[in-house]
């Protein structure tokens, strides 16, 4: 624990800018994953314990695509699209069989998928760590804001994730599809009776959720290393985000993802040994004060 260092950091603009940026990166990537978790839970009432696998596979697919095409934009796109497709297959082949059965069954199916794909990744890409490396377009000197270092790639990352947050939020509140999704979250039977193809709708929700996680994995690949099992820590954190924000709430996911990101960003200065623990403490505190989460509706 190093409260002095934290205090010193908070009074220096340079340190504040650097830590805020790294916190925003973590938070925004986390939001992309958690948005999928919360969307899937909101509509399907399924806790997708395999969501970290989408994130991991998205990163690996982007890694391979970058090697093949040499274009980071194409790599990110292929990571996101392949995981959208994988989301549909996963929903149709496995998850659709455990709708309505108890949490235990859903949990086991997801647990099995996590185990299988962690090993498949080991077989295909090897058990060692892979570094994707910064795309050449971003290998430029960093920006300096108030003395703090901000690599341009970080700024782009935050921009893309922010854009997606806006598109997702507007899409859910304004478009016909978004309204149908929200209606299905409240009463799927009624939506089905009104003539909406809910089977298709559920597949779309999984495609969006999987695609977002794949996108996050692909975007994160240049700044984090790839390894089998990397999905799990992201999964746990995105769960925490969903629980803090209120399950089913996209706004809640955004706010709490940024909160967790900032706790991480400044926690590394103040509590370098206990950053993970700090996040769990934040979650337990919020759950004690507001069990339904910050933006959740109490049931």
């Amino acid at each position, binding site marked *: 624990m190093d409260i002095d260092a934290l205090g010193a950091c908070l009074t220096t603009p340079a340190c504040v800018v650097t830590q805020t940026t790294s916190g925003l990166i973590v938070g925004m990537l986390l939001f992309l994953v958690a948005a999928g978790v919360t969307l899937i839970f909101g509509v399907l009432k399924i806790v997708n314990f395999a969501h970290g696998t989408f994130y991991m596979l998205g990163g690996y697919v982007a890694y391979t695509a970058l090697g093949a095409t040499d274009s980071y934009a194409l790599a990110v796109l292929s990571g996101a699209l392949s995981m959208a497709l994988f989301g549909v297959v996963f929903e149709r082949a496995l998850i659709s*069989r455990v709708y309505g059965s108890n949490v235990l069954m859903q949990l086991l*199916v997801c647990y099995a998928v996590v185990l299988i794909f962690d090993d498949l990744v080991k077989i295909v890409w090897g058990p060692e760590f892979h570094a994707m490396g910064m795309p050449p377009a971003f290998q430029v000197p960093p920006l300096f804001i108030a003395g703090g270092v901000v690599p341009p790639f970080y700024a782009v990352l935050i921009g893309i994730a922010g854009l997606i947050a806006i598109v997702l939020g507007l899409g859910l509140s304004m478009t016909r599809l978004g309204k149908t999704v929200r209606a299905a979250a409240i009463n799927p039977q009624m939506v089905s009776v009104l003539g909406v193809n809910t089977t298709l709708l559920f597949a779309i929700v999984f495609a969006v959720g999987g695609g977002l996680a794949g996108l996050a994995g692909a975007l994160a690949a240049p700044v984090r290393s790839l390894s089998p099992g990397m999905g799990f820590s992201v999964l746990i954190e995105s769960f925490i985000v969903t629980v803090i924000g209120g399950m089913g709430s996209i706004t809640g996911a955004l706010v709490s993802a940024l909160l967790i990101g900032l706790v991480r960003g400044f926690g590394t200065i103040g509590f370098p040994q*206990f950053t993970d623990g700090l996040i769990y403490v934040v979650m337990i505190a919020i*759950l004690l004060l507001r069990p339904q989460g910050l933006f959740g509706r109490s049931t």
Partner: protein
Amino acid sequence: MKVGPALRDVAIAVFALIVVLAIPLLHRSPAFEDFVIRLSAMALFATSLNLLVGNTGMVSFGHGMFYGFGAYAFALMMQMTDVSLPIAAVLAVLITTFAALCVGAICVRLGTDYFAFITLAVQMLFYSIIISWQSLTGGDQGLRGGIPRREIFGFELASQLHLYQFCAVVTVLGLLTLRHISVSPFGQTLRMIRDNEHRASFLGIVLWRARLFAFTVAGAFAGLGGVLAALFVSGAYPELADWPNSGQAIFAVMLGGISSFLGPVLGATILLALNDVVTRFTEYHGLVLGSVILAFALGFRRGVLDFIRLAWPGRLR
């Protein structure tokens, strides 16, 4: 509770204990004894989890926390103080019970999905404390240096045979106690909460209190399993409290059958045997294990003992 079934349970336990204790007298097999010692810890762990999952309908994904807690509490007490082994074991279980009470007080009021989440998160908090509190727990290296295996009642736990006998006795007694709790009026109350919590509530049962009690008891017996695990590995490692361990316990429960008392024991046996066999042939043991889980979850949709009971209704309890 009638006297008949209780006596029958005791008779079955005594018989099982005699059989298990007799095997090494007839034929010594280190591999088999090793297996039974590991199984004893896992069986207590999985059966205690089933008190939550099968009896009360509470799916905890963080039960490994108490397994790890028991192991660390016991190992630390043996290393840092010179209390005798049974006292250290009892104290470790008591401390774990208290920890389960505290964690349960936070968790049990939440709905099913939140409950699975938060138990997992509390477990990860505990795990990260173990990793970061290096001066006490040895961090990710685990608690090394061994546990002084002091002699108790003529048992020399450094010898594999005596450890085997000790684990067998503790496990059978532990299982018998859990069985007693599960068939007691309190156990019936838990099943009523599982099947219809509103009706249970109308009948005047305070839901959170019953759930908290079940959670605490389950934590205590997981801690006892952890004590045996610490004895076996002669130390304590963070992996004992990590999430895959909780996943294994859930799978053992599911594999054996959640509505049969001995289901988790059978599940733990199958799972350990499967792990031993698979790791001998391939390093990709997650792939095989995952496929088996999928086959059970989507194919059979229930565990082995539940499956048998459905095939011969009324024959087995």
